[in-house]
């Protein structure tokens, strides 16, 4: 490694100083202020966590730290001093000379940020060589060292691969290597692990934290996940509606948040439902094998029993067959072997051979409420259609029922004429729930319904689902990878791994040791709010 210490300054000097930043965003035909006078100071070698809900202005502020405003935004006023340089006064080419050499940016989706046509190592050193920080041969050598430091497998040869030939977690680490390659003074991480599984996330977090520490780089870590930021940051700044709520040192912030809003962010994870056992099975998946295109078998002998009026949570990382199980139950993917029985009656394997009654009794709610609603239909049409279709309601009877359903999901009649694009993320998901309820089903399959939502909204949705279960006795099959959500809502848990059921049982049984290996790995990888969690986990795994 060429430089182990940053030659440009000592730890503790102020590196970035942003004062009274105001940023305008253009939407709805006019300019709105989206950052309303935020101050930000970052010293060398420090990591700042920037958290808040979506729309709080985290990313916009993070990009402004580079002196950059994305299309549709403009920095209206304020000063941005980066190591004595006034970014606001700099011209575009001058700023571009800084970007990629002294300030680096790591985006959320590594897959979308790499050029699929070039080898990874060439992309890793591109900025370094392009900005004449060092020569090509030298930077490539250094890149290999970085790969090694980031604990990538085969650091000598992994750079010769193309982006599609490595996994998502590896790609995210290579992107960190790319940002690190010119030895920048400042790195901005914009939700770098949000798209990863919990088990992969741990590896990436460890690698990123170590390398930032090693080179004494300052970093801004943007995320909505409190537990993650607790591991990464020295201090945390909470944003809301483009304004600062509070800022404090990580431990202090976690132990005693001052503002009510921050407290509410913290409290979400406290939601917990007492489990209730039941033997009245409403839906049973019996020895199901399933495959896409008759070649790739994704489910192996899956057996799950779902008791009436209870919640069964299916957990596992992506690719474990959770969603495929849902597709088999709904009839979108006929099983190769085995059967799904509903109320003791076998369900036909494919959608076309099921009758209206069978379809009506099993409803589904999707992860992305955005794509689950037709953007050209109003809320009234979306909720009204199942009423018409299954129950033959027309005219005023239909409208009354729509109002009832809206009230049930805690919205009002003013929403009837709105289009999905005019709703917030949580409201969209509520409409999807209303659409499922309109059919008056026995079972609702919830496929990651809260994972795209902010913490507070997530809590609201979970509370709603619990209330509906209590009032109407609906059964949920809840697919998720978030253990906090599992604790909040489930009675029973099914752990899946590589298309097989690893474990199945009551929540208390599954969550208390001893666990099978995979369950242990999954449960231990879920970030906790304790800032020492990552350290102790790494130590634990090193021992094992």
């Amino acid at each position, binding site marked *: 490694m060429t430089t182990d210490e940053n030659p440009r300054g000592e730890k503790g000097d102020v590196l970035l100083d942003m004062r009274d930043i105001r940023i305008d965003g*253009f*939407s*709805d*035909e006019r300019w709105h202020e989206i950052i309303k*006078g935020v*101050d930000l100071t970052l010293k060398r070698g420090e990591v700042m966590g920037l958290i808040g809900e979506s*729309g709080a202005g985290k990313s916009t502020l993070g990009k402004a730290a580079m002196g950059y405003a994305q*299309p*549709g935004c403009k920095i209206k006023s304020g000063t941005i001093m980066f190591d004595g340089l006034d970014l606001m006064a700099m011209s575009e080419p001058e700023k571009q000379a800084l970007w990629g050499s002294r300030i680096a940016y790591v985006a959320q989706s590594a897959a979308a940020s790499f050029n699929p046509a070039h080898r990874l190592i060439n992309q890793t050193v591109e900025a370094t060589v392009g900005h004449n920080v060092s020569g090509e041969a030298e930077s490539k050598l250094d890149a290999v060292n970085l790969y090694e430091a980031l604990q990538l497998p085969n650091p000598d040869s992994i750079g010769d691969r193309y982006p599609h030939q490595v996994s998502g977690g590896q790609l995210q680490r290579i992107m960190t290597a790319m940002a690190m390659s010119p030895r920048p003074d400042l790195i901005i991480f914009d939700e770098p692990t949000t798209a990863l599984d919990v088990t992969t996330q741990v590896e990436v977090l460890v690698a990123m934290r170590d390398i930032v520490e090693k080179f004494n780089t300052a970093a801004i870590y943007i995320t909505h996940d409190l537990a993650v930021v607790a591991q990464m940051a020295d201090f945390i700044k909470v944003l*809301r*509606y483009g*304004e*600062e*709520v509070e*800022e404090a040192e990580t431990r202090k912030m976690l132990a005693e948040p001052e*503002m*009510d*809003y921050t407290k*509410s962010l913290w409290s979400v994870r406290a939601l917990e439902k007492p489990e209730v056992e039941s033997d009245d099975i409403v839906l049973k998946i019996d020895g199901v094998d399933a495959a896409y295109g008759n070649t790739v078998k994704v489910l192996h002998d899956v057996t799950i029993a779902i008791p009436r009026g209870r919640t069964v949570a299916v957990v596992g990382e992506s690719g474990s067959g959770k969603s495929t199980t849902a597709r088999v139950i*709904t*009839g*979108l993917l006929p099983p190769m072997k085995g059967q799904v029985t509903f109320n003791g009656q076998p369900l036909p394997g494919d*959608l076309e051979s*099921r009758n*209206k009654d069978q*379809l009506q009794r099993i*409803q*589904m709610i*999707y992860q*992305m409420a955005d*794509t*689950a*609603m*037709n*953007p*050209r*239909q109003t809320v009234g049409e979306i909720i009204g*259609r*199942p009423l018409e*279709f299954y129950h033959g309601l027309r005219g005023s009877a239909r409208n009354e029922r729509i109002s009832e359903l809206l009230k049930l*999901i*805690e*919205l*009002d009649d*003013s*929403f009837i004429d*709105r289009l999905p*694009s*005019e*709703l*917030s993320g*949580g*409201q969209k998901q*509520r409409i999807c729930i209303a*659409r499922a309820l309109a*059919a008056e089903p026995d079972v609702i399959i919830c496929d990651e319904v809260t994972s795209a939502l902010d913490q*507070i*909204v997530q809590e*609201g949705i979970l509370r*709603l689902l619990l209330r509906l279960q209590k009032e109407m006795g609906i059964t949920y099959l809840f697919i998720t990878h978030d253990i906090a959500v599992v604790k909040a809502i489930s009675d029973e848990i099914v752990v899946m791994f590589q298309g097989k059921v690893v474990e199945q049982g009551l929540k208390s049984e599954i969550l208390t040791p001893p666990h099978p290996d995979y369950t242990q790995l999954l449960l231990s990888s879920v970030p906790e709010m304790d800032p020492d969690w990552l350290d102790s986990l790494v130590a634990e795994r090193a021992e094992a």
Partner: protein
Amino acid sequence: MSTTSDQMSETESNAQEEAYSAAGEVGMQRVRRTRWQRMRISLSKAPLSAWFGMIVIAAYLFTALFAPLLAPYGEAEVFATPFAPWGGDHVFGTDQIGRDVFSRLIYGARNTMGIALATTILSFIIGGGLGLVAAINRSWLDQFLSRFVDVLMAIPSLIFALMLLSIFGSTITSLIIIIAVLDSTRVFRLTRSVAINVVVMDYVEAAKLRGEGLGWVMRKEILPNIMPPLVAEFGLRFSFVFLTIAALSFLGLGIQPPTADWGSMVRDNASLIQFAQYDLTAAFTPLLPAAAIALLTVAVNFVVDWFLHQTSGLRDDH
């Protein structure tokens, strides 16, 4: 952080800290406009080229609708002097058998545009409908239709049209049907490819899970979401159909005399170009219908470009 802004954020966050309500969440859009208001806003922002296009198209439509009132003479009215010069009784002179060129230009708008419009609509019904079915079905039917379309597209369309027209005869009905079928291959391809992206959306799956039939999924779930590219394509296809009809007429297999049509008018008067050295205006006579075709094509493309830009959500500003 200064104390004043500290206090400010405190009071504000206290105000915002009332009980969470789902209805109180802020959606993406704050102001809801009616379709008419939105149209007026985008119209007021339309670039000059789009305005030019819209005005030209409006003028053409007006001419086509009120042709009998605007034209000084009848469509097939024959006068004593063939190839009369410009000016006098005949603004643009007369053609090879003594028909008023100006009047025929005006009637030509009606005939050529009317037939082109009917053809384009028919081709969209055929191509769009089958394209949607193929996109939803995705089985052997999709394969069959797509390969059949490939075969049709492999044959140069003008030559194929010429062949079919000489088999079925050059009546207006067969002209419309033949060009519509040949053109629907392009519409099929576009519809299928844009619809495939919509078919995989969760809301289409949700409709299928509800047990909705093919008709509902096509009309209510997919069609509204692929309208913008289809409308844009409609404009372009209209221009191409227009050119095809003009080309066929120029070759003598399109719209038959005495019906006025711009393509055949170019052909009929083509020989006048040789007289440029004696009378410059005479040489322009065959170019007039050609210019009429060119102007409309350009105008339609201007409007389509603007519309595509509008709906694609591209942003120029930085």
